[in-house]
């Protein structure tokens, strides 16, 4: 087993990995950028190595710097988390060349599956159904428009290297295709270093169902059941749950078998996720395999009792998977809400800034994988995820109630969050009835405004606060060095 692991990531997922490493007695090395000097993953690692400026390309995407940090600290393995270099096959190869274990699949597997076109080809050959669309990249606008016409609008323009909601655009008519391609391509180029795009059918009334898989180096592959991830904004999941109410035991069995088949067809190893679209006729289509730990992995951990990060590390170290398919017996219902620094009343625009006060929800069946803390400055440079709030209960109804309670108890002052929005989604009749499709937010919560019925109590609080005297000036004790602006440490801002 490894003595020391470097985590090539930041925020909540870096802390998530640190957590399991500490459980396993493995030392941890964090890496960080200028914006993250006081980030949680820096504070709670055993060692922290500075990478460079805040721009991802100079820090968390900086392969040379990360490899050098691993060598300097004698870390034997690198956990990439999600995003950044997690699905970068060159980085996986580079690690192997340098004698460092990359905790994930091999470079070949990542390359094949990371390219949506190649993976679609593998699945077609392996007998796994894929969504209608191109199985090659296309830059010619005329060819793209032809294909779109053939598939039928609406279609999706997708970056072959995309993921996490980035590099993806819905196109409803030929007029929109040009700007969609340009913008998806630019976004993907910036985020993943590859701007190639293709198109596939867009199902406006579909569910996003994914299966967690674990595969060791010795040919053992199992699935850990599904996650329902249909609630999305800007094509990024925000609420996930397991089990999915859309699956009958038969369909679940069939999709689980297809997921294992997809993993074996691609010679998969380590933890991964097979994503399917499920249409209204209960047909499922392979979307992609995410060759990394998924943001929403905790709901699977809650229902199966399995620590996925521990198995990732053990598999990477060459251990045999100790679990057989029949050992995986999910129990109860789990839900995750992603808490971003964003403003749901204004199109989910990011809301960076200093967290003035934070109180995390606690209690039986509540888990909050959190990367920030009171006093931390949420930087403008990265994905604005603050934490993943997860609950587990015996039934779906109980889990929904528990999540609403947890959201009510989650206090964040200083940046905006979707907490109220989540409460309303969970309380809504379509969610309660599990009528969740990928267009859920647009259909039911477009132009959402919070229903704030305690304005009178808020006014009383305003007055009580004014009467509190010294207390309300609490931040005045801060040293003179500290200022109210989140920007003064960030260099050449135009102010």
């Amino acid at each position, binding site marked *: 087993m490894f003595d020391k692991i470097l985590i090539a990531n930041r925020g909540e997922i870096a802390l998530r990995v640190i957590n399991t490493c500490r459980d396993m007695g493995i030392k941890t090395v964090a890496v960080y950028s200028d914006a993250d000097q006081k980030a949680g993953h820096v504070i709670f690692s055993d060692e922290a190595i500075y990478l460079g400026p805040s721009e991802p390309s100079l820090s968390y995407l900086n392969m040379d710097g990360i490899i050098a940090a691993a060598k300097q600290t004698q870390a034997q393995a690198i956990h990439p988390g999600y995003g950044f270099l997690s699905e970068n096959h060159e980085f996986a190869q580079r690690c192997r060349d340098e004698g460092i274990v990359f905790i994930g699949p091999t470079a070949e597997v990542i390359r094949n599956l990371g390219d949506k076109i190649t993976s679609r080809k593998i699945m077609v050959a392996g007998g796994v159904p894929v969504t209608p669309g191109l199985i090659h990249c296309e830059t010619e606008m005329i060819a793209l428009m032809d294909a779109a016409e053939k598939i039928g609008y609406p279609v999706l323009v997708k970056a072959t290297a995309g993921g996490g909601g980035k590099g993806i655009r819905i196109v409803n008519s030929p007029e929109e295709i040009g700007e969609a391609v340009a913008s998806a391509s630019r976004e993907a180029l910036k985020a993943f270093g590859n701007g190639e795009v293709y198109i596939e059918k867009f199902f406006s009334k579909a569910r996003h169902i994914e299966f967690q898989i674990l595969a060791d180096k010795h040919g053992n592959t199992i699935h850990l059941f599904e996650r329902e991830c249909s609630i999305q904004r800007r094509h990024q999941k925000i609420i996930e749950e397991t089990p999915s109410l859309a699956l009958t035991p038969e369909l679940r069995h069939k999709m689980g078998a297809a997921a294992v088949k997809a993993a074996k067809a691609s010679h998969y190893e380590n933890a991964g996720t097979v994503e399917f679209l499920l249409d209204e006729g209960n047909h499922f289509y392979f979307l992609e395999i995410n060759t990394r730990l998924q943001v929403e992995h905790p709901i699977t951990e809650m229902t199966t009792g399995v620590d996925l990060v521990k198995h990732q590390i053990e598999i990477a170290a060459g251990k045999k998977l100790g679990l057989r398919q029949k050992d995986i017996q999910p129990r109860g219902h789990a839900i995750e809400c992603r808490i971003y620094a964003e403003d749901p009343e204004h199109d989910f625009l990011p809301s960076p800034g200093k967290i003035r006060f934070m109180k995390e929800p606690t209690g039986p069946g509540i888990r909050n994988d959190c990367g920030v803390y009171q006093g931390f400055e949420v930087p*403008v440079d990265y994905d604005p995820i603050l934490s993943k709030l997860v609950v587990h209960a015996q039934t779906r109804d109980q889990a929904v109630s528990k999540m609403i309670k947890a959201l009510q108890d989650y206090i964040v002052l200083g940046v905006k969050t979707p907490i109220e929005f989540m409460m309303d989604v969970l309380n809504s009749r379509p969610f309660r009835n599990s009528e969740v499709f990928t267009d859920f937010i647009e259909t039911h919560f477009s132009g959402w405004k919070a229903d704030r019925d*305690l*304005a009178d109590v808020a006014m009383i609080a305003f007055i009580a606060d004014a009467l509190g005297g010294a207390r309300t000036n609490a931040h005045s004790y801060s040293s003179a060095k500290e200022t109210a602006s989140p920007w003064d440490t960030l260099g050449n801002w135009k102010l």
Partner: protein
Amino acid sequence: MEYNLIVNQEKKSIDAVISDQNIKVQTKSKAYNASFMTISDYHILLNVDGQNFNAYVWNDGGTKTVIIKGRSYEVLDADLVEQNSSGEKSFASNARVVASPMPAVVICVLAQVGDRVKKGQGLVIVSAMKMETTLFAPFDGTISGINAKEGDKVMPADILVDIEKD
């Protein structure tokens, strides 16, 4: 004592009689009997007609964000706002300019001074936290000034484009 407050952009007048930790409040339609206890720097426990309410309050330069039962309220003193805004540009003037809704980096400027633009036309693309947002012209008009260029870091108060309305 009368308070003229603005709660989530809505003006409300209430009358409050305060003695020690007790507050008697009269709104247009309702009366409340409240008391409060300070739990920590940002946390007040209110008792309103016998019911507990935990209020979390952050005072950001006069505007207080108050979170109660998971919902947040922006509360400020209307009288103070009037004092401060007298003599300044009114909020309405914002409609003549284009500003970024968040701290961001300018990715691309799509227009130049003198251009005639139509309502809804994209003028500037900004990016924050890995997300791109296009800023649109709020009405038809002529661009009279551009105060941003690619790579600039901008704040919500910054006016990036001035437009002379038709």
